[in-house]
């Protein structure tokens, strides 16, 4: 019954919060989703057009494209509980 997560993480180059967000999300996903996910890391400086399409203003920003509902989690993802809540992973 594995629902595959499709996630996009928007970052700005290598700012401290971006680096931290990448570390945090990878850690959470490894522990909680058992690698059942697709994560695309997008640098807005290289791909501003993608940020335009997803209407991203703040970075870092994690977009949960699937499963619905679509949700944006803004920030360096340091509050693990909030991130899990945002990803609907608070069943335990």
């Amino acid at each position: 019954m594995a629902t595959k997560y499709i996630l996009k993480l928007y970052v700005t180059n290598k700012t401290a919060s971006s680096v931290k967000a990448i570390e945090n999300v990878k850690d959470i996903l490894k522990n909680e989703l058992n690698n059942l996910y697709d994560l695309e890391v997008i640098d807005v400086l290289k791909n501003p057009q993608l940020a335009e399409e997803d209407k991203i203003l703040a970075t870092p920003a994690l977009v949960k494209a699937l499963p619905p509902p679509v949700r944006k989690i803004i920030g360096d993802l340091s509050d693990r509980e909030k991130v899990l809540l945002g990803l609907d992973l608070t069943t335990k």
Partner: protein
Amino acid sequence: MAKKLLKVVSGIPGFDEISHGGIPKGRTTLISGTTGSGKTVFSAQFLYKGITECGENGVFVTFEETPTDIIRNTKTFGWNTEKLVKENKWAFVDASPDEVDKVETGQYDLGAFLARIEHAIKKVKAKRVAIDSVSALFTHYQDSGVIRRELHKLAANLKESNVTCIMTAERPVEDKQISRYGVEEFVSDNVILLHNRLNSHGERERTIEILKFRGLSHDSEEAPLLVSVRGMNIYPRPRTELRGKGFSQKISIGIKGLDDMLYGGIYKSSTTLVTGASGSGKTVTTLHFIMEGAKRGEKSLFIEFEESPDQLCRNAASFGWDLKKYVDNGIVELLCHYPEDLRAEQYLQMIQDLVIAKKVKRVVFDSISDIQRIYNERKFRTFVIALNAFLKSHNVTSVFTNTTSQILGVTEIAETHLSTISDNIIILKYVELGGRMHRLISALKERGSMHKRDLMEFEITEESGVDIIGPFKDVENLMSGFARRIRQMGLNKEEAERDFIAEVAAGKI
């Protein structure tokens, strides 16, 4: 010359006059105003006219309306914004709200926002950017400290990109605070306020005020702002230097005796008020003015509410004037319908369009009292001030008529607010004298010039229209309408005149 290079043409008629040349070039200017004060229209017009009139492409960053909304709304002004987007001249950065849930956790910045703006600027090689409105960022994100820092960064980036930017901000109410969240403190040294006040009739009145342009000159008084079917217009008060320039040459009003009373006619670009009761000769006086211009090949606009074009032409023909010929060959434009179904803004725009398109040099408004009946007092005042400002700035000489209610007796001109904008006031009156009605004409105020203070008698004849016979002699109480021959010793014309001047000074006339 040097001053001009520091500002860019705004695309908003009238704004470049109050701002002494436009929007500060290569900088960010904050436009703050309450809801409905015209911030979005100002922003869109700045970009649209920048592209279509100056060849400067633009980026519109929208926080409240979607790009589709803006394309649709600007279409009502006759602008094809969609085409400009397709031609890569106009780019949107869409920051309008989406339905997606947002959660904040930890540190963030607006890196994506800044990158998108930069991308859009490069994409269309923009010279202008409008951001409407930055206040929305403070409601979208919890950490206002971050937003402040990022907006500061944005302003610096824009400066680096060498674009001219306007940024709008919400003003909660009309009070001392310039903008919500104090945006002006960290974004810009250039601040424009758009006012939107409720008048005593429950109507909105908009004005614009330039609060500061760092190191650059500008007007500091508020100017009326109107949005018509063609977009935004601002109406600066006529400048004294403009007035000085325009007021160097006199033109004939078309009535020999009246020109003489005014020592050679009225000044070019001046505003003349002809006031009198119904049937006192106002329309025929204005016909003189129009026919005189037409003879010289000067284009005229005749705005008339009480008579139809046919009636007006017949009226002129009864004095032997072929007005119809001039109407037919386009020298004289007649505008004879009531503006009741037109809002003041639209009506004003229509007059402006005609004046510009036909290169009109003389305008008659017969009578302004008809307009006064339609619009409430404040609206009427704004209309008159705006129209007068427009006509003066286009070097148009105008004659307005004002219908007074009383046939005889003292009438107040001041009540209409018209006396303050008029350079000349010409009074037409009926006077009862020796059991017979006489016609009286008097020039009351000739701004910046000499005029004769005599109270003159005139007739209206089929041969010559208004025919000035000469001064009333040895008569007193003329202005009351019930004159008396002076028989007593010592009371002569000079004294009668002095009484009259005293009456004027006391504000009775």
